């Protein structure tokens, strides 16, 4: 019987095909062209449980990654980093750059976690979200991002005005939203992809009160996915929102994330056992994976982030007498001394504690990372004097020794040698402690123990930055900063007077100051900030200021965040690319491949992506956007 059936099946199938061919249907000549790609589901492990999904309050990446997939923004980035319409179909700016008007996409709806329709998405949702955000009782951690640009928002937040009508966000009609800014903000569109500019239904906000975002049942969904299940420290399940306005670009149907505190150790093994879709490969076991012919085919580099790390010299030391702060003050104000360490630090050795395989990938020669922003088809780090640093390497032992000898000669009789360099690190993890030990031994053996004495000092994670950097309780420290918006201005904040990083305004070198009391650096930044129309000019000015910080060796640019290695079936370069905001956290456009990508394939894909991106940026520039 079975055999008969087997033989019959092809015949039957043929019959069906023939019949279908014969039946005249309307679609027959234009078959529905679905862009939907084949994709498996995602299974992964995570170790840090999120505390809330209230996207109007949190500023933690892991937490707004839920909102990134659950709620859409006005605009979004595509996989090449080009801004595309999302919930806003189109927009226009007034000539003075102050009023932005958005046409909201019609027919998009809010859904509950059970997939039931709740309401339409309208312009009023952005106004209601802003009202919630600017209510100081809600203690939003991102309100400042909003009120730093929108008219009257800061006054409302601080209680100086009571009338919300005066705040520069308005629903002109059901589908027309209007933002009025304090001053022209050339990077405003990039800000719109961050949580404080996400919509929220006002009626629902009122309904759930202070429980908004406490779990998956207490938010509404208008994005690509619905969080159908969230059991705290257990699992999270996302399912595709079939009614999503751009459903054709959502290929992954289901994402199941399981919690495990030891995820980083267990995930690689579980990946090999085929239980999960992807895993980060810890630094320590990387060699093991790379040496194994089978496993090495599955490992590829992970994307780096836009967090930027630099070793920072402190000009205003406030550390205990045992580390000789006065002596440090004399030494740090000597440019040759700073340059000796600047050129003496073997960053690759230090980076080997993070990436033993290809440390160069995480190296950063500037304060703003590469591929952060571009103007006129040119990457920001290649503009003006920054290009010199971007293409070179600060580590140069011969140059370092030359500067050391100069510093010794200049400081002779003024400072006591060896100069004690107090270098704090956070004891919560092992990597930083390891890095501190490597840096100490490398610098001391190059520059001589009679020149510097680097003293790594461990501080507990409890109140770490307040005890070290912010208190000026360090001589040399690895500090970091992440961008708040897509503009080079964001990376100037640490060094601008009143920052809490290294207080260059307290330096004694008279060449750093102008007659009007400002520092030279301050003037350079002020001038750049004032240029809001000509973006190319603006970037040139910022690049000059950044090159100044590096040239004067206030910091030693070190690395970018992220990076590392992953073994994953998720396709790289398919997800939205953005230096800032929530777009890059979306699963939109991604697929789960049959097999993970290896190193070579990845490199090829990366080269192709970079080519595509350059072309896309040039096309954008040509279109005058």
């Amino acid at each position, binding site marked *: 019987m079975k055999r008969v059936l087997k033989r019959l099946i092809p015949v039957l199938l043929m019959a069906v095909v023939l019949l279908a061919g014969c039946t005249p249907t309307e679609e027959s000549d234009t078959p529905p062209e679905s862009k939907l790609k084949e994709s498996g589901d995602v299974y992964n492990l995570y170790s840090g449980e999120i505390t809330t999904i209230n996207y109007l309050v949190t500023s933690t990446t892991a937490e707004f990654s839920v909102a990134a997939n659950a709620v859409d923004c006005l605009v979004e980035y595509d996989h090449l980093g080009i801004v595309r319409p999302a919930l806003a179909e189109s927009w226009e700016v007034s000539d003075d750059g102050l009023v932005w008007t958005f046409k909201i996409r019609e027919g998009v709806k809010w859904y509950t976690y059970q997939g039931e329709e709740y309401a339409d998405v309208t312009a009023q949702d952005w106004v209601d979200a802003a009202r919630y955000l600017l209510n100081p009782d809600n203690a939003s951690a991102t309100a400042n991002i909003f009120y730093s640009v929108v008219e009257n928002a800061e006054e409302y937040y601080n209680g100086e005005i009571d009338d919300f009508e005066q705040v520069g966000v308005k629903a002109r009609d059901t589908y027309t939203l209007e933002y009025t800014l304090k001053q022209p903000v050339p990077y405003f569109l990039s800000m719109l992809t961050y949580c404080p500019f996400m919509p929220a239904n006002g009626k629902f906000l009122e309904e759930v009160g202070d429980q908004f975002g406490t779990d998956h049942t207490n938010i509404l969904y208008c994005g690509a996915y619905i969080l159908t299940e969230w059991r705290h420290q257990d699992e999270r399940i996302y399912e595709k929102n079939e009614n999503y306005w751009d459903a054709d670009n959502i290929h992954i149907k289901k994402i199941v994330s399981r919690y495990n505190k030891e995820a980083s150790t267990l995930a*690689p093994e579980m990946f090999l056992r085929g239980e999960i879709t992807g895993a980060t490969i810890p630094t320590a*076991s990387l*060699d*093991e*994976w790379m040496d194994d012919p089978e496993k090495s085919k599955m490992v590829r580099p992970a994307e780096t982030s836009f967090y930027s790390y630099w070793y920072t010299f402190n000009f205003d030391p406030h550390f205990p007498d045992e580390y000789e702060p006065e002596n440090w003050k004399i030494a740090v104000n000597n440019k040759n001394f700073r340059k000796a360490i600047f050129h003496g630090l073997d960053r690759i050795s230090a980076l080997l504690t993070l990436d033993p395989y290809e440390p160069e990938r995480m190296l950063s020669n500037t304060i703003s990372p590469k591929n952060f922003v571009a103007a006129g088809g040119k990457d920001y780090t290649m503009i003006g004097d920054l290009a010199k640093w971007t293409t070179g390497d600060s580590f140069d032992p011969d140059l370092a020794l030359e500067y050391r000898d100069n510093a010794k000669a200049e400081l002779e009789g003024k400072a006591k040698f060896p100069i004690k360099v107090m270098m704090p690190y956070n004891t919560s993890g092992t990597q930083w*402690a390891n890095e501190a*030990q490597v840096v100490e031994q490398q610098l001391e053996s190059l520059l001589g123990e009679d020149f510097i004495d680097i003293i790594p000092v461990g501080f507990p*994670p*409890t109140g770490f930055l307040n005890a070290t950097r912010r208190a000026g309780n360090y001589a040399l420290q690895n500090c970091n900063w992440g961008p708040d918006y897509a503009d080079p201005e964001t990376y100037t904040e640490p060094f601008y007077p009143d920052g809490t990083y290294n207080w260059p305004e307290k330096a004694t070198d008279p060449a750093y100051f102008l007659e009007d009391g400002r520092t030279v650096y301050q003037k350079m930044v002020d001038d750049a900030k004032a240029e809001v129309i000509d973006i190319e000019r603006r970037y040139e000015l910022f690049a000059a200021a950044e090159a100044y910080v590096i040239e004067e060796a206030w910091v030693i640019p070190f690395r970018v965040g992220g990076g590392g290695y992953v073994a994953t079936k998720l396709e790289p370069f398919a997800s939205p690319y953005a230096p800032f905001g929530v777009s890059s956290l979306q699963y939109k456009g991604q697929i789960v491949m049959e097999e993970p990508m290896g190193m070579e394939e990845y490199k090829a894909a990366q080269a192709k992506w970079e080519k595509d991106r350059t072309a896309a940026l040039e096309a954008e520039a040509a279109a005058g956007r």
Partner: protein
Amino acid sequence: MSQKELQVIQAIEDEALFTFAEFDPEAAERVGYSDYSYWGSTLKIFFKNKTVIFFLILMASLILFATIQPYLPNQKSSTKIHVSPVTGHPLQNQEPSKEHWFGTNVIGQDLWARIWSGTRTSLLIAIIVGIWEVCFGIFIGAIWGYVRQLDAFMTEAYNVINNIPTTILLMLLAYILRPSFRTMVIAMCATGWLGMARFVRNQIVIIRDREYNLASRCLGTPTSRIITKNLLPYLVSVIVMRIALSIPGTIGWEVFLTYIGLGLPIDTPSLGNLLNEGRQVMMAPALRYQLIFPAVVLSVITISFYVLGNAFADASDPRNHY
């Protein structure tokens, strides 16, 4: 009863029927004499056990080796990062070899040297904490047990302190004093004595009203002699046992504190730190040696102390003497 004694009784009969007898050490000695020696018997039984001899030798050689290891020829520093002469970069994750007997860790430090340095650190912490536990714990425990008026108050205080999570105290201490060897010792001393005090108190409560103590007191034995001759021999043996057992306990505790992120800074090798470092690479079979070596050394140490402590407790129990 001799004739003479009868006469004495006769003589005082008129004055009073009973008077307190003067304490006469000689007489006491004569009555209590036997050729039994508590410590002699204890040690005899202790050393008769072959397992004990084995672990004693093992432990002694471990401690001896850990102590003299840095002074032996060809030993490496536990913190020096070994650099490859070819590439100029650290020699990371080198498997055990002639040069590095136990291999190197993730940043190229010699694991052999780190294990012995870690053993010294952990043992030193354990011994300091152990001694403190004994001194302070016994002192508090003795007062608690002997002074009846204080019992209710001390019990209450014990309940309170015992119920405050150690993590809070440790976090505060680490925050105020910064993570270091000193902080670790202070943190462990701050709470470690509690168990000892309770233990001593319970022992004293049990023993102080035993019949033989009652008898001693009736015979007019001074309190100091009751404590030194009646109470202490009993207590000393259990206390020595507690110290022996507190060492594996303290090491286990250090491992736990490191596990929850409140341990020593990583540039001070300790068994807890080494284990934690090893744990992070355990999923790579080729690197598992970084977990196995410290785990084995740690287990040998804790097991030796544990076995010896228990064997000593058995040996020192007078019921096992013959």
